[in-house]
Every structure is written in structure tokens, then in C-alpha cells.
């Protein structure tokens, strides 16, 4: 480890979990405050991009390998589509959250919105990190 980079690496390593925690807050509070799935996914990708800028592209690829990246890209869209299918199973149209089996239709709609925000966040995070880590290759 070079001596001149030590402050940068220490501060980045300290900030890494707080950025992810804030991204999780923005995703889950999507229905109450400004934010939601898209914004929280981009903030979550910012943490991996920060790691890649400070420590190098290869180390960022080591902590986030290509196989997991490939799986997570499709997992978000799959979660979203599966929520719609669950709404059909419990009697209703596609993506009609009021028919999910929770206490009241209003609470069922809240849980439906939460699940689809999580799905959107996962997909946006994986696509942004894949775009960044592929475009920053050295030939």
C-alpha cells in the first residue's frame, strides 16, 4: 500500500457502509418521502463506484464478481413480475395490490409498493455497476 494514498483509503473505507445504509433508507421510504427505487439504486451503485475509484477496478471486481452481477440484473425484474403474478393468484388483475392477503387493502398496497421498489433498486444498482466496471476497463 502506497503511503500517499492512506488518508483516501481510510476515509473511503469508513464511508462505505454509511452510503449503503442511506441508499437502503431511500429505497424503503420510497412511498413516504421523495426517493424510491430508482434513486436508491443509483445511490447504492455509488458505493461500489467509490470503492472502484479509490482501490482500483480489479479490487472492485473482486468484491463484486461478474456472476453475482449477472444474477442480480435479472433478479430485480423477476421480483417485480412475480409480485404481479402473486396478485393474479390471489384473485385480481395483474399488479393489483389490493387483493394481496394482508389485513386491509391499504396495507396490502403498501407491501406491494415496497416489494416493487426493492426490485427496481436491485436492478438499477446492478446495471449501473456493470456499466461502470465494464466501461472502465483498460485495453
Amino acid at each position: 500500500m502506497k503511503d500517499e494514498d492512506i488518508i483516501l483509503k481510510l476515509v473511503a473505507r469508513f464511508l462505505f457502509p454509511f452510503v449503503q445504509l442511506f441508499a437502503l433508507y431511500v429505497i424503503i421510504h420510497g412511498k413516504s418521502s421523495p426517493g424510491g427505487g430508482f434513486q436508491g439504486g443509483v445511490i447504492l451503485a455509488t458505493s461500489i463506484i467509490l470503492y472502484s475509484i479509490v482501490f482500483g477496478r480489479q479490487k472492485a471486481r473482486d468484491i463484486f464478481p461478474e456472476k453475482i452481477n449477472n444474477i442480480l440484473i435479472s433478479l430485480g425484474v423477476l421480483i417485480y413480475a412475480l409480485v404481479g403474478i402473486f396478485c393474479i393468484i390471489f384473485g385480481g388483475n395483474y399488479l393489483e395490490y389490493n387483493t394481496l392477503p394482508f389485513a386491509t387493502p391499504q396495507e396490502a398496497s403498501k407491501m406491494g409498493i415496497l416489494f416493487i421498489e426493492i426490485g427496481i433498486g436491485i436492478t438499477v444498482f446492478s446495471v449501473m455497476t456493470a456499466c461502470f466496471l465494464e466501461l472502465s476497463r483498460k485495453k
Partner: protein
Amino acid sequence: MRFFQIFLIIICGAVLIYGVADFPFLGDPRAPANNYIIKRYLEKSYSETGAENVVTAVLAHYRGYDTLGETTVIFTAGISVILLLRRKKNER
């Protein structure tokens, strides 16, 4: 040939600007965008969807299918970036 293309661009731009100048103002109470459906979205948003944020309620509940299409577009963009730019490990 270039003059013909520039002329065509200017004609299309002029037609578009002439169409945009006829729009109603942003908060006009007589505009059709503010009358029919927006009252229902603003009044019944919390009791039907349970989301205090009206933007998220419209985007995730009333127009949830469009958001599924948007997520699929992001997914397709990611797949094309990976297809075009990823190489095997021993070729780097």
C-alpha cells in the same frame, strides 16, 4: 445536398414550435390535463394506495405497468453494455 437537409430541419423545428405555442399554461384550471383524472389522484391517493407521496403512488400503483416497462428498458441497456464490452479473463 446539405442545404436541403438544413432546410428540412428548419421546417420541422418551425412546425414543432408552432404546435407548442398553442399549449395551455401550466396551472390552467380549464386544461384537460388538470380536470379529469388529477382530482381523483389527489383526493383518493392515500386511501386507495397507502402511500403518502403522490408521485410514488401514481408511479408504483396507478401506473405500475409502465414502471415495469421502464425497468425492462434499464435491464436491456445493461445487457447490451455487457454483451458489447465484456471479454474473457485471459484476453485482457
